[in-house]
């Protein structure tokens, strides 16, 4: 019984703050964090959508996440395919290298990328943000695809080859459909990770701002709090939907979705 109470308490601790954000997004209060909110309104949603800076940040976040995810899906799948079933010198080092961008604190990845960009006189742009994001997104795709490959039967591939299919056909008709949901799940996690990333972005973004960067600046110097609350709800929605979808796609191997963040 005490164990049950501790569990419920712990889960409340994890979830109540998220509900509070949603509650505040509908608050009629304009200036402060007063609790309880004096009244409720949906008008801040309209105000937030009208704001040019919010729309620009949202668009940039979506574009970066799409391109970074695409790059991570290609690179992560290649790495998973290479590590699966082949033993070679440096295999352990490669798995370490893949985890490193996520295992080391984000500030180290960020400052390292920034100082390298400075050293090579590369100006900050859309692409520098994408490079930063793809670097730490590769591992989630890799983890998901590798987990799926490990549970698949190599005999299928051999059978396809025996029946006369070449390597490309085998990949297209046998391997790809087999790993499709894991690949999609990895891609969705990568998308959510990129859409939400703030630390590495602050170092590689220059003047542009993604939605999390916009939020960070609002947290440090608040301008219109109700708009920030609405954007916060929006960020939760955009990150949670792909996560839930990824969980659903890999529900038979539940460790795949949580691993490697």
């Amino acid at each position, binding site marked *: 019984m005490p164990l049950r109470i501790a*569990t419920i308490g712990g889960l409340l*601790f*994890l*979830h109540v703050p*998220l509900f509070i954000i949603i509650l505040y997004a509908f608050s009629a209060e304009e200036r402060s964090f007063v*609790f309880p909110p004096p009244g409720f309104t949906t008008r801040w949603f309209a105000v937030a959508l009208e704001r040019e800076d919010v729309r620009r940040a949202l668009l940039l976040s979506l574009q970066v996440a799409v391109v970074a995810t695409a790059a991570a899906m290609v690179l992560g799948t290649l790495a998973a395919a290479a590590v699966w079933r082949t033993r070679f010198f440096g295999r352990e080092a490669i798995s370490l*290298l893949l985890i490193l961008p996520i295992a080391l604190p984000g500030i180290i990845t960020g400052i390292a990328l920034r100082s390298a960009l400075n*050293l090579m006189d590369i100006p900050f742009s859309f692409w520098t943000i994408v490079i930063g994001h*793809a670097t730490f997104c590769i591992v989630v795709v890799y983890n998901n695809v590798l987990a799926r490959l490990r549970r698949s039967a190599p005999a299928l591939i051999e059978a396809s080859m025996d029946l006369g299919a070449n390597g490309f056909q085998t990949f297209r008709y046998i391997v790809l459909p087999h790993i499709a949901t894991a690949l999609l799940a990895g891609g969705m996690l990568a998308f959510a990770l990129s859409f939400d990333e703030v630390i590495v972005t602050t170092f590689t973004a220059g003047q542009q701002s993604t939605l999390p960067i916009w939020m960070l600046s609002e*947290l440090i110097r608040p301008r219109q709090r109700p708009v920030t609350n609405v954007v916060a709800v929006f960020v939760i929605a955009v990150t949670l939907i792909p996560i839930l979808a990824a969980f659903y796609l890999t529900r038979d191997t539940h460790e795949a979705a949580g691993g490697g963040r």
Partner: protein
Amino acid sequence: MTTLAAPSPLQRISTALYLRPRILLFLLLAPPLIWLGVIYLGSLFALLLQSFFYIDEFAGTIVHDFSLRTYGELFTRANFDIFLRTAVMAAVVTVAAAIVAFPIAYYMVRYASLKTKALLYLAVMLPLWSSYLVRVYAWKLILAKEGIVTWIAEQTHLAWLLDSILAIPVIGGPSLSISYIGTFLVFLYIWLPFMILPIVAALERVPASLVEASADLGAHPGATFRRVILPLALPGVVAGSIFTFSLTLGDYIIPGIIGNSRPFIGQAVYQLQGTAGNIPLAAAFTVVPIAVMSVYLMIAKRAGAFDAL
């Protein structure tokens, strides 16, 4: 006699690759390795290199000579305080996370039905993946002077308790959102799932037969817990502590938004590379958490924590 059609180019490439698996492996590995090896490791190396340069105090420019001068600066009183403050916070957050996470993980593995377990797993995972910044923001709303905690304290006539907690020197402050207590709470909240999941993984691997054997041999449930389950779950706790400790060492956003103005390592690095323009010292600063984490990972590996990751 039938003649075979000439193989298509694609077919020929495929056959060639099949016969030379080394080349195939190389082609598969080259793009991810070039990306991570050149862009990522290259950047880390460039950073490390710059930590050996130093700032010319008079000109304010970076001198590109190798020296250990910058590392010497790490040992000044002010910088040492920053390391100490961050390390103490990381240690306290790690211990608290282990204490809060263990019962949840234990309940999930030992008592919950299969269906509840899947639900609980999702309930722990969702906050882990949902927006970091939004969750920090939520705590700003909760801990602010006019926020929820103050309201609850007033409603329950416990305002005096809140005031006396805030009056404690060092960890107190003008409000929870401007104190180390607030910083600690948010760190604990944000990293908690990183502690729960590895402990669950470790507990899952404790064989039920071992627990039964312990009971059969006459051990009290408490004794079984202390002498069988706890030692076997320890690698999970160590694995979780890798995350909680490392993430606290490097984070600069949480103490920047919730806490007082005394900086943590991450904030010092951020200010040094940004406003101060002292990249060498910023780089030397980052070497400290990397070194601490390398030692930590080595010890954790010996404790078998990697199997619980």
